[in-house]
């Protein structure tokens, strides 16, 4: 589904990604872990198409198409969704209205009929249950005055509504208490299927107790320095990141 080769990206001439190779297939859940400043969120942003980052080398191919050629909205229409680490507040824009417009633009792109008001609301209600989202949040302006937990839940709710093929969760666990974490993870798990993939970017192992990954990658200094299975995450939880850093340094000598 997603093939990243030798990806290098920088912001204001600072190289942050330093040659990433990663392959994600349908049905898989990949966790990207790593210490602060290792480039995890940059990788997520580059995949979503944030323009501040300049891709200096490498390729990203999504379902056979060159992702680098696509505007952020085209990526969304192709089926990529990023749950933001810091969802933006947009006063005056109602969540319902925004999501209906987004969903129908995506449907149009895929050659589907737009949903009318009634079927859209049915679709919305169904997805609300999934993340135990309160009806009142829908009539409010997008994320305006939402608590940290409500914002993150709203991200997963949007993901459920838009039904992407590849979801990227950028530190969705940060700022969540354990109950909210369970709800969010539960929502993600219900959306897992054999034709969808998920990339979970996280600093801590905690979220991975609830969303069980098939693969775990450790990012350090803009490179994937170690890959493994779920056990790697547990090992990191226990030992921290220092041994990874040491191991990486010794390979450089």
């Amino acid at each position, binding site marked *: 589904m997603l093939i990243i080769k030798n990806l290098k990206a920088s912001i204001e001439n600072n190289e942050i990604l330093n040659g990433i190779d990663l392959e994600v297939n349908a049905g898989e859940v990949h966790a990207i872990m790593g210490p602060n400043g290792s480039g995890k969120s940059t990788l997520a942003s580059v995949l979503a198409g944030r323009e501040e980052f300049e891709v200096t080398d490498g390729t990203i191919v999504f379902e056979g198409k060159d992702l680098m050629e696509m505007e952020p*909205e085209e990526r*969304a229409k192709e089926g990529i969704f990023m749950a933001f680490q810091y969802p933006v507040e947009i006063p005056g824009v109602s969540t319902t*209205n925004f999501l209906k417009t987004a969903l129908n633009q995506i449907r149009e*792109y895929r050659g589907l009929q737009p949903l009318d008001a009634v079927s859209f609301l049915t679709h919305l209600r169904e997805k609300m249950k999934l993340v135990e989202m309160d009806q009142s949040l829908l009539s409010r302006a997008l994320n305006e005055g939402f608590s940290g937990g409500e914002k993150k839940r709203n991200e997963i709710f949007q993901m459920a509504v838009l039904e992407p093929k590849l979801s990227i969760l950028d530190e969705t666990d940060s700022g969540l208490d354990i109950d909210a974490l369970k709800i969010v993870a539960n929502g993600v798990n219900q959306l897992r299927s054999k034709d969808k993939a998920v990339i979970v970017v996280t600093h801590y192992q905690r979220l991975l107790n609830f969303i069980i990954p098939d693969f775990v990658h450790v990012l350090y200094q803009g490179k994937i320095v170690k890959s493994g299975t779920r056990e790697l995450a547990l090992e990191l939880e226990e030992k921290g990141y220092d041994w990874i850093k040491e191991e990486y340094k010794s390979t450089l000598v």
Partner: protein
Amino acid sequence: MELSLNQVLKDLFEKHQKQNNGAPAAYAEQAFERFMKTGFPDRKSEEYKYFPVHRHFPESPLLAEKVEDPGAHLVFSPKLDDREAIHLVFIDGRLSEKHSSRDLPEAGLEIKHLNQLSSTELRELLEDHLDTYNVNNDPFIELNSSFLRDGIFIKTSKKSSTLPVYCYYITSAEDVNSFRNFRTIMVLEQDSRAELAEYFFSEENAGGFENFFTEVYAGKGSRLNLYRIQHKRGKEVLLNNINIYQKENSLVNSFTFSLSGKMLRNNLNFLLEEENCESHLYGFYFVDGDDVIDNHTTVDHQKPNCFSNENYKGILDKNGKGIFNGKIYVRQNAQKTNAFQSNKNIVLTDSATINTKPQLEIWADDVKCSHGATTGQLDNHQLFYLRSRGLDERTAKALLLHAFAFEIIDKIELDPVKDYLTKVINKLLGYQFDN
């Protein structure tokens, strides 16, 4: 150039006085003397610094002649409201009976057409109701009094209904020399309520210079919603002064929507003459093409315990030039004044400009005043967020602009006006979604 404009107006005034078909001679004479003290604004005038009105005044101005019904030949139905309401249609500063519906006896409003009054009646009316206070010595207020030939007088009483009153000011004149002065006077008697919507409209061929003046007397305990919608397509200049005199415990909500106009200037003056007045000034301007739209506002707190709140927002596109100036005066004995002001702007292109200036002058010491002005582009983070959900760039921008403007539209209480503005502004902003 500046000197000659004053001379041109002096000649015109003498001619006008000889014809003697407007306001009483002495009233006009005094006003013209006051005008001559300040003179026509030139490029050095601070108040008209960004609005070069001297370059757009006719070289040989012609005053409007008296006509039977200026709208007799026009097909026009600019009705904003299908329900029962009072519609007053003015074409080139003259009332068109054909297009107006004002005879609603059950409304209990007193409506007088100044043009139809005898000179004695007009003098009495002016003496009773025109204690014009020219807070910033604006020369156009004096010119309006000097050349006053036509206007409308509307009076509400406690017993009158609250049927909205719509005034449509339509420009059809094409002559660049046409100089039109018109006065709208609204008097709200004690504890009465009213809705007044003023709609300014023109087609592409319109021209000339319009100097309109609206005066509102909000009596003790009265409440008024005042709407001003400006959507002009012609080349004419509109100079619009609005004075609102508020008495004890009165409440006035003012809405100004300037949607298009080659040269458009509003001087909105709130004069809080007694205690416990409340005033809200909402404004939205969309400056597109080569339009110049200038909103000057003044809130003059003369007495203690009054509250004023101002919120103006603007979107500047293409080569549009926007100007906002917000004066707040708090006079020495206006203690316990609360006065707030905010002006936010979004500039969409490199060649659009906005000049914004808060101007607070406070002589009292126990007051709460604040002001803020921002100018920027659309927020990139918000834009990216929307696009990352699949909205194309154009739609995402329109959605954000809609949200920006909607904060002001949302305050409107009169539904037909709200629906009309929602529709028109969404169209201007390229916002095409259902709700």
